[in-house]
């Protein structure tokens, strides 16, 4: 799986309250969530992300609540992949489960400037900064997680498995 996009860069400890604040969680409409994505950090984010972006961030991305609305808001806003030094674990699982690629990528924040064009090879865990001509290695996703992402998320993945076996 290859993902391409322009980089939008954030710092450390980007938490779920800034990704999508509690007061918007009564909606079940992901498009509505997307309109408020990253509101706490950058109200312009939804318009920037619309054309398809790769988020690059520091440590502990997605810390805080278990709200799956956080990765959903980012995905529907136009985020194609998130590269971070490290992720908060619930966010990481949620992103994989809704089919949003996430890669742990130590050192990434120092190698990408806002607006750089990036190409990510998920299967190999390779990231190329096409603007700067740099290539670096992220931590490879375990194969079973990669398969969930490839299937478009956990539900699609389970449906396939169920389809094959007829039961859970």
């Amino acid at each position, binding site marked *: 799986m290859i993902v391409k996009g322009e980089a939008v860069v954030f710092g450390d400890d980007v938490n779920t*309250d800034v990704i999508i*604040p*509690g007061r918007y969680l009564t909606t079940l409409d992901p498009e509505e969530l997307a309109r408020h994505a990253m509101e*706490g950090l950058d109200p312009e984010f939804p318009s920037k992300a619309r054309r398809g972006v790769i988020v690059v961030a520091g440590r502990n991305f997605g810390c805080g609540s278990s709200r799956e609305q956080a*990765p959903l808001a980012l995905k529907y806003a136009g985020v194609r992949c998130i590269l971070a030094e490290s992720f908060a*674990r619930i966010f990481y699982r*949620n992103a994989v489960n809704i089919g949003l690629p996430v890669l742990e990528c130590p050192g990434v924040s120092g190698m990408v400037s806002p607006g750089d064009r990036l190409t990510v090879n998920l299967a190999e865990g390779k990231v190329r900064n096409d603007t700067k001509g740099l290539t670096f290695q992220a931590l490879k996703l375990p194969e*079973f997680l990669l398969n969930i992402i490839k299937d478009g998320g956990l539900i699609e993945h389970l449906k396939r498995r169920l389809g094959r076996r007829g039961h*859970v």
Partner: protein
Amino acid sequence: MNISEKILALASGREEVAPGEIVDARVNVAMVNEITGPLAIEAFRKIGVKRVWDKDGIVMVLDHQVPADSVESAILHKIMREFAKEQGTRLYDVGQGGVCHQVMMEKGHVRPGELIVGADSHTCTYGALGAFATGIGSTEMAAVFATGKIWLRVPSTILVHVTGRLQRFVTPKDVILMIVGEIGADGAIYKALEFAGPTVEGMSVSGRMTLCNMAVEMGAKTGIINPDEASIAYVESRTSKPINPLRSDPDAEYEERLEFEVSSLEPQVACPHAVDNVKPVSEVEGTPVDQAFIGSCTNGRTEDLAVAAAILKGRRVKEGVRLLVTPASQEVYLEALKLGLLEVFVKAGAYVCNPTCGACFGGHMGLLAPGETCISSSNRNFVGRMGSPEASIYLASPATVAASAVTGEITDPRRLMAEA
């Protein structure tokens, strides 16, 4: 093995597990609230399985926006009720429960030695009784509803050993804030935090819940405490189901051991806008506050209300400041009523309201305006958490919150009470 490893081994039908291994584990109990439940239900329907894996294994709680504050929340509540009825799962409706984690503990749904997943990050609270409990998201919860199973990476464990006797008006909240400050917001990502030592053993179940509650604020998968007489007595008074308390072996392995001595610990405050931005109260005393909040799954229990009432008794909330008090559950509400604590709050000029997450989560009440400052007994002070992104939140113990409500500025409760 340590307690976390033992529980994960049992849940995955293995003799032994080691940190880093991925196990396919059987879940004992799964919890959702109305913020995460409807998404889980929607995803469950898409999987195409008709019945949940075990109707008795699922607990549903309405707590974040109760009673419904908008048509949107009313719809979320309705989705939850209809699902509970259709599947025969337990639902704690408005007036029956309270904050989900408090309800899980009080109603006997948390038992030592069990694996519990909740679609809420503070599910780690249940480690107070020696359960391995961790937060997951809605889609994953749908898969648990369908299969009763989840994959988990066995975490490495940091042992946090606490000794020393806490001073009066210094509480378990101050201990955990200090620890969060030391370990940092990402210091325990993917790991388990095991709290131990005489100070922890001397804490009530309520205090232990406050410790484990904030494990996730360090990125941890769970916070956990070995069950002892006190926690087993608590469980046995609340469930008739057989229990299987597992404990860490004396020679269990830990990735790291941290030692803290707390007899001279001052009240602690987490300053805006990060939970690990922790300072002793003396460094922030005098900071003016507009709102004070006592409640939440961190500090909304009888013990918390009692220490706040001891400070507020015969005093008044400072003119121009509002104090919100929210008991964490119907049970706590009733106890506080019987003990006369609610009367103390009302006489002091506090606003006392029904059990709900309420102000903690900035969903539907007690929101902050731009430029305002709140001191809160809850667990998160992120930008925008309690309303305007331009508001500031300080986290502290219920004692410090109460003392600050009286003076209108952040105040060391020991000083206020010494002056009395």
